[in-house]
């Protein structure tokens, strides 16, 4: 590798980010083609994928060495002290290069080899089938059909090939409408609600300027509302703040004029744009990264960042969308500017509120494949997979996951998956280890031949789905309450500590209810199985006794319990209780290095000053 000058540095110190007692680990730092690896004296490994590195900073030289601070996209921050400045400089330069690949084929996904057969690789990519998903929703049907207009990406490059549109929307209408929409992203079906016969559609902003009209586009919207037999009118939800939408008019874009479109109800919901979101997250991280933060500084920092306000705005919009469908039976057309950021957020969250299928593990994968990947959310640009325009970076998908997390907090039994699942997906959106999230749209992915050259993430997650199951999940309840109605009053939104401080273990609860319940329900299932077997055996035996009427003991029926019923009850605390977070980014390599750690902090050798005995006044 031409970027790597120094592959190994010894006597490197790793500082703890939050502990105030300046605890540090000493070990060896290795630089590989894909990872930065730190092995401390206790043989604990810390793997950092180059793609995860968001920023590297070399601080001023100190007496103990040269500090190197690495910020990761999964919100890990590591602080190394390298004894020799020369080494530090080499590593710094290497990381700068390695963390900013220029071409797609430099990404980890193209070299990652989980040692699978080709057939498995193909099968893996076939796991999520969107045609199957539309069938599940109930399309095609009398009102909706599959359109071949974009089969060769001729009408819209950033849409998938297969699109569902109202049956009465003819090809000229589609073509005309697409010419009137930014980037050609004309209105198409995102979700069909079978019971209500209402639809969620998505598109980009119209090129209406101050007065332009497009008859085909007007017909297109009419076709959508006609495809809903239950309701005459439809909603058009512009997810932008009104001011932004108005400003767009000056550039020949804008929003629908209610006078030109019959039977539409137009509404703004006010989610801010990618730039506001980027700087909001930046501010949030600045605050949460401060050592010895006071409660007041934290809360005012949280407020100033606006982050939770944005999360609330996104979820609020999804609630409006879901209610329009369920309460009013109305179809809704959602757009923002280009229809790939805010629109993806609102459409996918709306569907998640409406349909319990998306609250299962498989369903959530489908949802992400459909509303994010296939409809062209620009993962590559937003996550800065390649060295590019920094202004394109934005945590839009992270916000989506955070909204889902907020829902899982409000409805602990409604989701099949748990927090670790959301965190793991976030991890891999940035890891570039699997092909799913590479590139900005389906066309680009096909050109990159990702299905042949890389692996799909989903089968790997399914393989280890045990880790991602919510033990409290109640599918019956989900059947009964298909619609989730979250309470979006401000005080319900919490700071997502396990996302933004995933790697700051000292901040986590020291005992995990989740793991415990998980083990318990696992055990229960086994025990119930054993019980059934035993009961069956008893029945058999009784029958035999009745039939034979002998006093001989039956040798054949010897009960053995597979589980440890008769052993002393196991202590409820699993030994590795403190470990609940995700280490590294490799699902298959099994690098989730599990290590023992007392949940009470280890006894320090020297005087520890954690709660500040240091600042004594005598």
């Amino acid at each position, binding site marked *: 590798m031409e970027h790597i000058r120094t592959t190994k540095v010894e006597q490197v110190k790793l500082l703890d980010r939050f502990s105030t007692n300046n605890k540090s680990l000493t070990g060896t730092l290795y630089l590989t083609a894909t990872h930065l690896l730190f092995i401390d004296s206790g043989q604990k490994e810390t793997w950092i994928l180059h793609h995860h590195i968001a920023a590297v900073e070399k601080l001023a030289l100190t007496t103990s060495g040269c500090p190197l601070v690495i910020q990761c996209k999964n919100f890990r921050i590591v602080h190394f002290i390298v004894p020799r400045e020369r080494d530090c400089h080499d590593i710094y330069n290497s990381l700068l290069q390695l963390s900013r690949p220029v071409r797609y084929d430099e990404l980890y996904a193209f070299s990652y080899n989980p040692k699978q057969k080709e057939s498995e690789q193909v099968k893996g990519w076939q796991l999520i089938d969107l045609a199957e998903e539309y069938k599940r929703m109930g399309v095609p049907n009398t009102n909706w059909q599959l359109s071949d207009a974009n089969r060769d990406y001729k009408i819209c490059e950033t849409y998938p090939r297969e699109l569902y549109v109202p049956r009465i929307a003819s090809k000229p209408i589609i073509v005309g409408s697409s010419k009137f929409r930014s980037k050609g992203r004309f209105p198409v079906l995102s979700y069909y609600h079978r019971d209500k016969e209402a639809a969620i559609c998505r598109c980009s902003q119209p090129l209406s300027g101050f007065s332009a009209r497009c008859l085909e586009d007007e017909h297109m919207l009419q076709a959508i509302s006609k495809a809903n037999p239950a309701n005459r009118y439809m909603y058009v939800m512009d997810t932008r703040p009104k001011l932004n939408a108005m400003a767009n008019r000056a550039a020949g874009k804008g929003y629908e004029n209610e006078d030109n479109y019959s039977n539409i109800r137009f509404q703004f919901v006010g989610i801010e744009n990618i730039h506001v979101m980027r700087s909001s997250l930046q501010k949030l991280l600045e605050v949460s990264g401060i050592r010895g933060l006071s409660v007041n500084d934290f809360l005012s920092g949280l407020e100033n960042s606006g982050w939770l306000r944005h999360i609330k705005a996104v979820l609020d919009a999804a609630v409006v969308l879901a209610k329009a469908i369920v309460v009013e039976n109305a179809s809704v057309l959602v757009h923002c500017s280009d229809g790939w950021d805010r629109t993806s957020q609102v459409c996918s969250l709306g569907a998640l509120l409406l349909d319990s299928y998306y609250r299962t593990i498989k369903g959530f994968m489908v949802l992400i494949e459909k509303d994010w990947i296939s409809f062209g959310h620009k993962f590559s640009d937003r996550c800065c997979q390649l060295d590019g325009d920094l202004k394109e970076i934005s945590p839009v998908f992270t916000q989506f996951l955070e909204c889902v997390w907020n829902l899982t907090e409000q409805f602990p039994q409604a989701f099949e998956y748990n927090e670790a699942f959301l965190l793991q997906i976030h991890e891999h959106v940035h890891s570039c280890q699997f092909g799913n999230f590479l590139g900005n749209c389906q066309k680009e992915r096909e050109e990159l031949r990702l299905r042949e050259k890389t692996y799909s993430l989903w089968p790997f997650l399914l393989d280890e789905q045990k880790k991602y199951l919510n033990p*409290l999940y109640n599918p019956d309840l989900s059947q009964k309450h298909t619609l989730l109605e979250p309470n979006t009053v*401000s005080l319900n939104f919490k700071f997502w500590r396990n996302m933004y401080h995933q790697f700051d273990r*000292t901040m986590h609860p020291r005992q995990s209810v989740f793991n415990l319940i998980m083990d318990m329900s696992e055990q*229960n299932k086994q025990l119930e199985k054993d019980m059934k077997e035993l009961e069956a055996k008893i029945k058999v035996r009784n029958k035999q006794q009745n039939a034979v009427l002998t006093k001989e003991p039956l040798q054949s029926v010897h009960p053995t319990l597979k589980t440890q019923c*008769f052993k002393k009850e196991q202590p409820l605390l699993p030994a590795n209780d403190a470990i609940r977070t995700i280490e590294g980014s490799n699902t298959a390599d099994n690098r989730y290095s599990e290590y023992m750690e007392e949940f009470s902090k280890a006894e320090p050798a020297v005087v520890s000053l954690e*709660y500040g005995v240091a600042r004594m006044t005598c």
Partner: protein
Amino acid sequence: MEFSELIKTAKPGGDGEQGTVELWLLIRNVDAVEKRFASSSGTITLKCKDLRVLQLEIPGMEECLNIASSIEALSSVESVMMMYPFFYRPHSMKLEQGWHLYLPHHYYQQTSAWRLSSVNRDFATCSTYPSAIIVPAIVDDEALRKIARFRQGGRFPVLSYYHKKNQTVMLRSGQPLMGPNKKRCQEDELLLKAALCGRARGFVIDTRSAQAAKQARMTGGGSEPKAAYLGWKRLHRPLERGRPLQESFMKLVEACNDPSLGMDRWLSKLESSKWLSHVKAALSTACLAAQCMEREEACVLVHGAEGTDTTLLVTALAQVILDPDCRTLVGFQHLLEREWIQAGHPFHLRCAHSAYSHARLKQEAPVFLLFLDCVGQLGRQFPFSLEFSERLLLALFENSYASAYGTFLCNSEKERSLCKVKETTHSLWSWLNQPNQQKEYLNPLYSYNALVIWPSVEPQSLQLWQGLFLQWIRSSQYLDEAWAEIQRLVEGSKTPRTNGAAHSQRLLPH
């Protein structure tokens, strides 16, 4: 005085229909009454001490007025002896049960260094201490009387907690009455020297700032000077109490009760209430005390000014952190008896009003609530380490403000003895410890954890106590169902074992 005199209209609006829902509200629970009238009917808003808000629509202006004034009068009865616990006589319980749950000599184990003193038998030495206390063996009762004169409120240093693991101790007291002339007291110095038990170091944790402690000298108080107390080092950890704490509580409740707040307003109100800052400060000071004992192997003396508020907050919390015995249902009750009730936290004064009252504030302050909140934070960070659940903390909060039981009545053991609380009211503990009640307050996930539970005190780790502050504001149906599911799972993991065992028994060859 007869209560009936205060009741002008007993039952408005004719007979109630059959099969209607009953709502019983202890009138003592009413914190504020607000009236509003519209033509012929009126609305009474009852704001309760447990933070619930009730609205009653009452037809008839006069009846409405009558009821409002009756509730106002009945809810503000001042005399302790007139309070409900003195009249409450449930069939299922016997008086005098539960009053002897905790006795000092149970806690005290014979050691050569410490003795049980009855110097305060008739509450003459210190009016806010119980009759029996534990002190260093070499300090005799005469010396104790002298020391009592040197400590505010007569609260001479007494043993609060003995850490078996390394034989360190925690003491608590009132501030030394040094005054501007830096008065000293030889006996006091001797007592603290004896408390060290030959160890080199002790820490005085003063719950005031260094500045405030210094200023206290002008009004006769002060803090132990290093020169006079060899081996003792002073640490200042200012904790808010009194009026600012009460105002913090009121502001927080006000913010929680306003669902129309946008995110920015909500966060800024949460911040300006400062409640979570107080939680952080209390937890970190308790951790500091615990750390001094567990890790520095030093003795600790905790005091602020009077030694009846923040002092108890710190000593009680430190024990929950250090001692697994305090984390059981019964152990926690012992702790409350020992470190709050018998230690003389003035419950009657502090909990006279809750967050809604318009009455002029006197001595109200939610110090005990702050303690419960901190324990709740520990419970969230160590969900298997407390034997009791959040429900117990909620019940304790409610009962400390308005109760059918006598446990939290009065300000000290002396007052309780004068009012014959133990003879004529029921104890909350005897009710809580009935088997069917107990079940309700147990944490199904509990498993004994012998270790010290060091919490994270970073603001990112502290959470608003939703179960309390949002209890009446938003539905917790889904959270309750999830909790019930956890309980079911835990129960379930026990029953198959026994069933399985029974089945196997039946299959064994005879």
